[in-house]
């Protein structure tokens, strides 16, 4: 009833959720078998930053939006240069794209019966 089948593969979210609940239960079980002698409030519960002290300037620690995926964006720099050049922000360019696509669609529709 709640599963779907593509005729090729199948997907049942309830079964999947149950499976994950089971995996979670096992993980919780393993965790509960861990050390019981950990002390809260001592050095053991502090953040471990390569042995350095936790900086007092907490706001400076936040990784800002632009810093994420810097490497990926840098790696795709050539692609992004072209694609961002496409979004000029000038309305007449947008219309030019429209007219171009219109022409292309015409050509395809007229050539292919």
């Amino acid at each position, binding site marked *: 009833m709640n599963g779907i089948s593509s005729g090729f593969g199948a997907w049942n979210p309830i079964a999947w959720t149950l499976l994950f609940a089971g995996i979670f239960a096992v993980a919780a079980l393993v965790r509960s078998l861990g050390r019981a002698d950990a002390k809260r409030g001592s050095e053991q519960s502090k953040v471990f930053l390569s042995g350095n002290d936790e900086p007092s300037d907490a706001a400076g620690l936040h990784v800002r939006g632009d810093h994420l995926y810097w490497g990926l964006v840098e790696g795709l720099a050539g692609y992004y240069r072209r694609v*961002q050049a496409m*979004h*000029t*922000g*000038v*309305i*007449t360019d947008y*219309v*030019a794209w429209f*007219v171009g696509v219109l022409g292309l669609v015409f050509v395809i529709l007229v050539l292919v019966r």
Partner: protein
Amino acid sequence: MNVGNVPFVVAALLVVLGLYTFLFKRNLIKLVIGISLIETGVNLFLVALGYRTAGIAPIYTLAPAGRMVLPTPQALTLTSIVIGLATTALLLSFAVFVYRHYGTLDAGKIKELQG
């Protein structure tokens, strides 16, 4: 060329002229004029579509004898003119506000939203 085709040629010319204006002019007001030109071309096309040679207006009040032109395209044209009025008014008021904010009507300079 059949003289009956002249309105269609003119309509096509108007559309092409409007597209040219839209593509190659940079002033926002001129762009609005370009849109209006395309609109007029399409309206002319619709009216010409309904015309029958030597037809009379499709009104029964005191109608003389004779073939009538098709009323439907005229109704379509009227609707399209009304819509055109609204869109042109809206576009022009946007142009006014853009001019107030940016101090220019040059489409090439109004591109803070990009990328």
